[in-house]
């Protein structure tokens, strides 16, 4: 295991597997994917619901179905090696990767380039500081999803879900289908953070009430959860005294946000973005460290795996090019900054050389907007691109493609904004 790899990929979920395929298609000869779970596929293996793949594979797949597609595309490629049960401990700037597995012990691997595709993890009770006792029966929605869909256990029978992100909504339906009673879904924001389709098919279909602008102010129970106290919150998300009510339950599921899993990135000293919590990347998904690329939920939390795959294709391609010595040559480094109503935009900058390609920008808005909206990209005070939109929600990432000709002509920093009216 002391050979030199062209590309080492940290994480074997949809991003890692797609990056491996893309690296192979772009000429890399030795590609290694390191996955810490018992099999490749990442979190998709427990997302048994459908709705994946409409963009990327042009057909509707379940999560495991999407993972299977990604895996099937690389499993027989002689250039791609996948190690499971392998935990990466450290990535160094010289592209040495230290990893450990029960069968191989500690390994020191060397790559010409590295792609970081570690994904994200869930925020927990500690992250949102819910007061009350510490009984059994409080789970993150994803932990419960793994229990129900992969291990064969039901975490409880009478359930309250905090947070209306997609995982929370999907779990509301999943628990209902397994014969559990979902008492309510609570959301601290005045709007849901999940896709509207999931409100319809996961809550409305099962008559599960959604309480917007509400949160849990106490969890009760000594050994096991017996109930929660819920209160309405004001516009600053502070509980309003006098609005409390009790809900009886034996289980609380938390769907309160995801955090890109960037311990390795921070260990590497990569420049991080405070709002995405991921590494700052250019349009090739190269981080602040040359030859180290990143893609998928580790860069910014996506709502569609299809976009994760798109991003991983880019990272895999340029990681292969860098490994083969064909990258670089960036003459202009232009920042992409966020203007009105835009919270985040990835990539955060463009490094442009003689060769340019169209660039896809992924954005999230700060608040829900509807009506006549205009997404605008400005460079040096001039509008270079715009797109009309009817609806924008923080939960739904906006993707726009800057055409190659426009990208080639850019000479100064960009600002993206979403304005109402014309």
């Amino acid at each position, binding site marked *: 295991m002391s050979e030199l790899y062209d590309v080492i990929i940290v994480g074997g979920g949809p991003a890692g597997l797609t990056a491996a395929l893309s690296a192979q298609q772009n000429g890399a000869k030795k590609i290694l994917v390191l996955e810490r779970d*018992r*099999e490749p596929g990442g979190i998709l*293996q427990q997302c*048994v*619901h*459908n*709705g994946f793949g*409409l963009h990327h594979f042009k057909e509707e*797949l*379940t*999560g*495991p*179905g999407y*993972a*299977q597609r990604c895996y099937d595309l690389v499993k027989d490629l002689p250039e791609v090696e996948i190690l499971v049960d392998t935990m990466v401990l450290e990535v160094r700037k010289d592209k040495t990767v230290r990893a450990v597995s029960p069968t191989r012990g500690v390994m020191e691997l060397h790559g010409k380039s590295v792609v970081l595709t570690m994904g994200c993890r869930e925020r927990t009770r500690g992250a949102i500081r819910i007061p009350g006792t510490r009984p059994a029966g409080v789970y993150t929605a994803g932990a419960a999803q793994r229990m*129900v*869909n*992969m*291990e*064969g256990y039901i975490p409880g029978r009478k359930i309250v879900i905090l947070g209306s992100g997609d995982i929370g909504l999907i779990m509301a339906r999943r628990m*209902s*289908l*397994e*014969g559990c009673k979902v008492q309510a879904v609570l959301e601290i924001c005045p709007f849901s953070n999940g*896709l*509207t*389709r999931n*409100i*319809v*098919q996961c809550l409305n*279909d099962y008559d599960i009430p959604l309480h917007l602008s509400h949160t849990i102010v106490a969890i009760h129970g000594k050994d096991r959860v017996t109930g929660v106290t819920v209160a309405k919150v004001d516009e600053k998300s502070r509980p309003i005294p006098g609005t409390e009510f009790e809900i009886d339950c034996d289980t609380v599921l938390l769907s309160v946000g995801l955090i890109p899993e960037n311990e390795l990135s921070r260990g590497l000293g990569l420049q991080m973005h405070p709002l995405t919590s991921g590494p700052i990347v250019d349009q090739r998904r190269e981080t602040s460290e040359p030859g180290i690329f990143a893609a998928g939920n580790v860069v910014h939390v996506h*709502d*569609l795996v299809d976009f994760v795959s798109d991003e991983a294709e880019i990272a895999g391609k340029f990681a292969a090019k860098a490994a083969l010595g064909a990258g670089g040559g960036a003459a202009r480094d232009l920042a992409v900054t966020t203007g009105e109503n835009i919270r985040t935009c990835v990539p955060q900058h463009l490094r442009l050389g003689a060769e340019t390609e169209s660039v896809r920008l992924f954005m999230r808005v700060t608040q829900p907007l509807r009506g006549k909206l205009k997404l605008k990209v400005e460079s040096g005070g001039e509008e270079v691109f715009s797109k009309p939109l009817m*609806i924008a929600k923080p939960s*739904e990432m906006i993707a726009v493609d800057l055409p190659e000709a426009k990208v080639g002509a850019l000479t100064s920093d960009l600002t993206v904004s979403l304005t109402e009216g014309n």
Partner: protein
Amino acid sequence: MATETKVLNCINCPLSCELTATVEDGVVTNVTGNFCPRGAQYAKEELTAPTRMLTSTVRVKGGRLPLIPVVSAKKLPKGRVVECAEALRSVSVAAPVHVGDVVAANILGLGVDIVASRDMEAV
């Protein structure tokens, strides 16, 4: 003639288009707000005979994992989805299983097969 307007969200894809349907005497005569033809089709079905896909898991014997995820090969009548999920709780299959293998044929006589949504090797 009774004409009413119904507002609903399409569930076919993550865009979740907001649809406005005109219903005349129980027949959907016009749909607006859809970005693609599937939205119009959805509104017509949803307001007359709603359907849903079902995804769940069934037990697998001799497999690498205790459960295998499954999906209905086609949409099921919305009102029968929970019953189908209940029926799947007593189903178990033997590994190996391949993606697309039928794990419950013609569930509840509805003319829809439930199929595996991934491979499961035997151990």
